[in-house]
């Protein structure tokens, strides 16, 4: 998986609680992304980062925030989890060869 790890791999949480997902890379790639994958919707971009402390919103960013204090780590936070945020979350990275993204193994999040 191109030196990308995600933690946790599975999480069950209750509505209203904050949740933080972590993506860690060992490739020293500049760009990092968070996607969610839901049946019938493919992969939708939540947030992305183009450098340390440089982040921007994707198409489904409401209810999510991100932080990137080090090149290797990109955190996704659900400030107050809702059932609609039950999904599989993927982190991806890319380097100089734009468009070639490498995905992590995913985190399955269930909000009850």
């Amino acid at each position, binding site marked *: 998986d191109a030196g990308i790890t995600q933690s946790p791999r599975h999480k069950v949480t209750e509505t209203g609680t904050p949740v933080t997902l972590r993506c860690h890379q060992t490739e020293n790639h500049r760009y990092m992304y968070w996607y969610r994958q839901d049946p019938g919707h493919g*992969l939708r971009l939540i947030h*992305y980062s183009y450098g340390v402390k440089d982040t921007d919103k994707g198409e489904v960013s409401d209810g999510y925030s991100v932080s990137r204090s080090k090149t290797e780590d990109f955190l996704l936070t659900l400030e107050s989890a809702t059932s609609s945020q039950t999904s599989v979350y993927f982190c991806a990275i890319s380097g100089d060869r734009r468009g070639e993204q*490498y*995905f992590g*193994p995913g985190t399955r999040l269930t909000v009850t």
Partner: protein
Amino acid sequence: QQQVKQSPQSLIVQKGGISIINCAYENTAFDYFPWYQQFPGKGPALLIAIRPDVSEKKEGRFTISFNKSAKQFSLHIMDSQPGDSATYFCAARMGSGSRLTFGEGTQLTVNP
């Protein structure tokens, strides 16, 4: 303008047959079109990609056909094998930070 429409949602093919998945886009600013392959429980992995100045690209049994005037591109899997059974996503690159817009995905099943 940002969407990539993919069809069919699911596809069943016999071993040895040809699998064809189609994608269409509207935004003429897209300049890079990758296909990703995803096996159950795994993250998507880059399979093959094409730029719009080329009408076809072949890698082994996988071929992308690109029709710039129709704003369509397709993935052809020749001599389909049960090991090709996976979900396939088309995508298109736009904007800075190598952001990708993904299609909804096609679940391919190749029967033995």
